[in-house]
């Protein structure tokens, strides 16, 4: 469905992506990586907002480099950027309706029906006729998600969609994602490994502009097998922290007779991305 071949992108002297080869099929793929790993650049390239310096990108068989094919891709694409913008003096309904027009849903009745469907999916029907400027950050995030769902896209690109959502809203988001019919190909860029564990069929780890891992969440977790242990005292490790139970959890090659524990996706990701994966709060 999505094919990237030797895709590279730099901003001046800063390399954002270096020779990325990737093939993403149907289902939900999580995109993990520390800040600055190139996740947003990759999603912007897939969203046809940014052209790669080199390499080729095909989505559903269409090339993003060809203008006519790019239009076809855009018709089948839903994109929720990391920092979505809104027309603050529009109401929720007006804004989603406006985006629906830009998505070429031109027949008024059909469009309004579709707008009602997506705002109901993300549970903002109650504020449909409120101005966006009066909405909370969480509400706006849901609104950004709603506009991405317009027209039942074949490909859904979500850049940190759960950032700023409370736990209940995150659960609601997972519920909506998992119930989408027909099932689109979804790339979910996130710092939340719980979202990846809960939702994703596949996971891609991007570190310093390159793909470091591309398989299933279970395989990712297994890469940290025998490398996670706990102790009652601090120890040297790649990453180490004190847990809520008062134990120290360590990720590295363990010393002999360590109390090994079952690794999580979090552990494996931290091990893979190193200290760079520890995102400052």
């Amino acid at each position, binding site marked *: 469905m999505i094919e990237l071949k030797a895709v590279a992108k730099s901003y001046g002297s800063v390399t954002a992506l270096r020779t990325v080869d990737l093939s993403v099929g149907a289902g939900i793929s999580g995109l993990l990586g520390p800040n600055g790993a190139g996740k947003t650049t990759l999603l912007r390239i897939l969203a046809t907002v940014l052209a790669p310096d080199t390499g080729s990108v095909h989505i559903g068989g269409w090339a993003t480099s060809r203008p006519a094919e790019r239009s076809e891709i855009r018709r089948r694409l839903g994109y929720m950027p990391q920092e979505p*913008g809104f027309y603050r003096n529009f109401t929720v309904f*007006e804004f989603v309706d406006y985006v629906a027009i830009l998505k070429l849903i*031109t027949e008024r009745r059909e469009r309004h029906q579709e707008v009602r469907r997506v705002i109901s999916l993300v549970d903002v029907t109650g504020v449909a006729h409120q101005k966006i400027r009066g909405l909370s950050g969480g509400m706006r995030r849901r609104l950004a998600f709603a506009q991405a769902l317009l027209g039942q896209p074949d490909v859904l690109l979500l850049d940190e969609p759960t950032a700023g959502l409370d736990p209940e809203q995150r659960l609601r988001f997972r519920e909506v994602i998992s119930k989408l019919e027909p099932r689109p190909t979804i790339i979910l860029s996130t710092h939340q490994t719980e979202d990846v564990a809960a939702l994703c069929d596949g996971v891609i780890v991007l570190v310093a502009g390159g793909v470091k891992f591309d398989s299933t969440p279970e395989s990712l977790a297994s890469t940290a097998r025998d490398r996670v242990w706990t102790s009652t005292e601090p120890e040297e490790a790649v990453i180490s922290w004190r847990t809520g139970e008062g134990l120290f959890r360590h990720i590295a090659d363990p010393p002999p007779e360590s109390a090994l524990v079952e690794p999580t996706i979090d552990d494996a990701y931290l091990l893979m991305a190193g200290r760079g994966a520890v995102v400052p709060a």
Partner: protein
Amino acid sequence: MTTQATASRGAVAALARVDGRKLLFSPIFLSGLVLSLVGVGIFVQTVRTDATATWRVDAWTVGAGSIILALLAMVAANRAGLRDWREETVDQHEALPLGTSMRLAGLLGGVAWPATVAMVPVALAAVWASTRLEVPPVTTIHVIQTGVLVLMLGALGLALASWIPSGFVAPVVAFAFYVVHPGEYEQAWHAAWPFSFMSTVSLASWHVVYLLGLTLILIVAADLRGSRGRGGLAALTVGVVAVTVSLAAILPNACVSPGNCLL
């Protein structure tokens, strides 16, 4: 691809409806409409209280009101044109199938709404005055001219938004237009001023052609990237020809002395 083109045309029409309504109910345009109606009100009051009142001498308040309305419509159109820049939606809208040029076409279609409404106060004043005064036939063209003026200034507002993305530029340009406005037309070139209202049907019609030509040039300027093709070149050519021919018709015949123009 034909389906895409048809869908794009439908989207432009839908955008024009949405943007037209938004422009019409924008506080800036509504303020202009109120001022325009105040101009009409002053004229009505003058006619009712002054037995010597005439259309030619006393309807200047109607014209002044419509000029202010047109300038405020430009500011409103400029604000609408700056929306994506101001609200930082450029990136996410770039990922949608309707391109920048088509979105601009939709906005321009939206300007047609205030342009139509701007004609109403002038038309009302003319119809009311015709029951009491002698209103020259050229007034009908002046009504159309008001609408075209709003369309032209709307296109200017959009061109400014596209070239200088700043909320300060359009209000400054509007103010400058009003301040620099020659008022009494004593030299022929003053007829090239967008606000001049000609005294004969023929001259006023040429002035409408002139304004439409300027509108086309401004549309091309507003969307230089999208206008590089044959369509853009054709629009630019038609615009330049319309401006040249209409000026050739107007300049030798208009405004060589005060009173040749309405304002």
